[in-house]
């Protein structure tokens, strides 16, 4: 029975279902428990957080990744699954601190000052959460000083900066410069992205990585985590 719950969690992730009222990829899923209800059941059954995360959530995301690679799943499917994982992690988060389990890392994300656009940042957040990272989303139009303060307080491994406008992308350089001035730059890896941003620009301002889209951003973070980045 406990193993069944883990399998159901995995299947819920594949289906991208958070709650029992959600539709999935397949017909007739509405009414069956979604990933949040299943995680609650798993915890009530004293299943280990380790197995919920590794076998259920990550196991499901691995299959989703394979389906995406095979062209069976599209980006909305991938995001729905990542959202499901993210919702499950929200339930598990308070217990993680009390356990030995470490998340893959913490990343602060923000859209820089004077820029109100946050779709890209939000998608990146969903994907990162789905991949097992702890994401602190500061929001949009975030003051440079506020970003630096958050880095100082939260001590994340990563900082993700987003901008949609050519007029605001320069703020990313401001953030990096202020982090250097405050002696915080060496503590974190910085990834930048957004429509006007390019690999070349990222290098020019001293960022550690550049994501052309959400998936590339995730791949860059994963590479930086494992130390396999170019």
């Amino acid at each position, binding site marked *: 029975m406990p193993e069944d719950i883990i399998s159901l969690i995995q299947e819920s992730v594949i289906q991208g279902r958070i709650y029992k009222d959600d539709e999935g990829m397949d017909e007739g899923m509405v009414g069956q428990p979604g990933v949040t209800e299943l995680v609650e059941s798993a915890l009530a059954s004293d299943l280990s957080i380790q197995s919920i995360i590794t076998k259920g959530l990550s196991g499901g995301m691995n299959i989703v990744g394979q389906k995406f690679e095979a062209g069976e799943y599209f980006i909305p499917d991938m995001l729905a699954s990542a959202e499901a994982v993210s919702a499950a992690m929200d339930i598990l988060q308070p217990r993680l601190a009390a356990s030995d389990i470490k998340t893959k890392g913490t990343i602060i994300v923000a859209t820089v000052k004077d820029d109100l656009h946050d779709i890209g940042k*939000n998608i990146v957040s969903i994907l990162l959460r789905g991949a097992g990272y702890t994401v602190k989303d500061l929001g949009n139009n975030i003051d440079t000083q506020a970003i630096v303060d958050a880095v100082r307080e939260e001590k994340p491994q990563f900082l993700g900066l987003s901008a949609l406008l050519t007029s605001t992308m320069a703020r990313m350089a401001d953030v990096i410069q202020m982090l250097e001035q405050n002696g915080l730059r060496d503590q974190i890896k910085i990834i930048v992205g957004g429509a006007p941003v390019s690999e070349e620009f990222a290098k020019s301002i001293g960022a550690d990585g550049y994501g052309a889209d959400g998936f590339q951003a995730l791949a860059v973070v994963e590479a930086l985590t494992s130390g396999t980045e170019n």
Partner: protein
Amino acid sequence: MPRKGILVDRPFERLTREQAELIHQASMQILTDPGLISFNREAVDILHSHGAAVESIAGDHQSWQVKIPEQLVLKALDTAPKTVKLGARNPDNALIMHGDEPRVYLITGSETNIWLDVDFPTYVNKADPTKEIRVPEFKPRRGTIDDLCQSAHVCEHLEMVDGYIRTVNIQDRDIIEDNKDVNKFFASLNNNTKHFMSGLTSLKQLDNVVRMAELIAGGKKALEGNPIISFITCLVKSPLQFVDDTTETFIEVCRRGLPIVVSSSPQAGTTAPIKEAGIMAQINAEVLAGITLGQLVKPGTPVLYGSVPVRARMDTLGDSYGSVETSQYNIDCVQMARFYRIPNYSTSGVCDSKIPGQQSSIERLFSDIVVTMSGPQFLHCAFGLLDCNSVFSLLQAVLDDAHFKMIEFFLRQPRIDQPELEAMLKQMREVVATPQKLYIRYIRPVLRSGEISGVYPFEGSGEADDVFELAYEQMKELLARPVEHIDRETTARIFEEIPGILPRLNIYESRS
């Protein structure tokens, strides 16, 4: 179950009801003054016996002035069917056209002399020899019967093609006037199960091609119920002349009760007035004259109001199918046919460009979109045609099919009703309560129900323009896909009964 076509919910119209009425009245006046000149004696006799005034011109008994009274036209409009069925070898490919329903069927054609081959040679950058690109190179040559088979084959698999008009004139050495019709009919019908429409090269072959159709359809009666072939005749030459031979063909087809298009193709500026009111009044009179003659020959003959108006190029006085006015005239004609509730044969997609490319895409898409939106029942939309009507490119036909899928999608009816709006409000409330505030997860069911249009099917990777190469790959894939040929027994009977078909077209004999 007939083909669905594209149902245009609210067709685009340029004319007010009053303007359509004015055009009708002007056409009625034209038919009596100046009337038409007929070079065909039989048409003169038929019209005269029903009350038209006729007068030999210069007493030569070669041409006659014919004045067709309004009541004769109105009676013909009354007997002309308001619904026309064009059958097909595969009955699921039948086309049902109601004159008052703007359901658009997309048809290929028409005949070109030149077949455009394409190849993709590689070019090396002189400044940087490590850089290479493949560029399409188009090579024109005279069309053959093998090309016609290939064209019919590919068009069988093109999803948006509802019916087939041959796209290439067969100019093989062993094709002569006496065997051209039977070969073009057989090659087309044997490689395509959709409706087949054609003109006739020789009236002497009419009974042979009708007999061929009877054998394929399952007999004379079966052909009546499922007319797998139909004809198109340009019996009227603008301005206002019944041509001798095509009028004779028209009369004979009407006698056999098979569907026929009364087609007129005036050119604004040369064979019709340059002004819209003028060309419209004239083309309408010309088509009505043809419909009247057909209904007098055999009341109830299924006819299509065929309109191929075009504006003259100002530099050469040749046809300018790519001109904006040409689309305007066509849309006006669609509306006039609907005014009479007779199914319309209209034209779009013919372009001035000589090869596939940006000019070709812009010219053809412009008219394809606007004329489709006007809701003609039978849209001869020139799949693959270039250089007005003289060149055919199979590659372009594949591109056109993809573009028509986009037009079809665009013309879908909006789904806005109370349950839909309530579902959307629920969605909004749910999304606004989430941290990310994104609707992405709701895309999924819609994505798989086909409610979202796809990306451009020939989109290249990165900045590369791979459109032609990708379309070429699809063309090859369609050619490799088999088609349902006429069965062995029927093929044997056709070759036995119908003289003149080239033995190499018998796939059963050539394979054994």
